[in-house]
């Protein structure tokens, strides 16, 4: 009961009251923690960039032709990791399977480095 009251107090949406003089008072601070997280919402499941980066790096590290110690978020597949263009295609296919995406062929050709891959996947609306 007390937990419920505390939870409701935390989830209160800040109300901006307009006084008769026309000034807008400050919203309450208590909601700053929970204002950005909406529980039970179906529109907020976009991946965060660190999440995307972690998963992309783990996929690249588990590629058999890659030395895992050299993989950083900025690495370029062909110049830094010494991979081939066909290996690039294979890595991209592994990323597509990891994030359940379908990348069109023309755009898949241009993704050459970890940084581009992370950016593309982060901006893709259907990545999961």
């Amino acid at each position, binding site marked *: 009961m007390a937990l419920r009251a505390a939870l409701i107090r935390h989830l209160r949406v800040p109300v901006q009251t307009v006084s008769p003089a026309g000034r807008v008072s400050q919203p309450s601070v208590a909601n700053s923690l929970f204002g950005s997280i909406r529980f039970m919402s179906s529109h907020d499941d976009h991946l965060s960039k660190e999440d995307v980066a972690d998963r992309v790096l783990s996929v690249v590290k588990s590629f058999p032709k890659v030395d895992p110690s050299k993989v950083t978020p900025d690495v370029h597949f062909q110049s830094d990791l010494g991979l081939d*263009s066909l290996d690039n295609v*294979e890595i991209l*296919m592994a990323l597509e399977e990891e994030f*359940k995406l379908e990348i069109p062929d023309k755009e898949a050709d241009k993704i050459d480095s970890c940084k581009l891959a992370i950016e593309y996947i982060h901006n893709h609306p*259907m990545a999961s």
Partner: protein
Amino acid sequence: MSVASTAAYAARRAAQRERVRILYRKALKDTLNWAVHRHLFYEDADNLRARFEVNRGVEDPDTIDRLIADGEAQYNKWRHPDPYIVPWAPGGSKFTRNPTPPEGIEIVYNYGREDND
């Protein structure tokens, strides 16, 4: 090749490389369509890669064109009749299933209230 046409030659080779990459990508996805189980897929993917590696050192653009055309013909012959497509992608089952409604349309929640209530 004369020096003046090196740019054209480089452009042609780059276009060929792009065609090869796209062909490899489609062939790999097709291999996954046919060989669903992973251990079979890995073997078939290795074989496919070996077939691409055989022609790696070819330099003559006309031979390369002919090889690419042969490869694409083989790919078209072996295409899977029911490929796996991600549901929300074109050709998948959820494609345009729930399009976003156009601008300016609103839902009026009157909960069944009639006008003469």
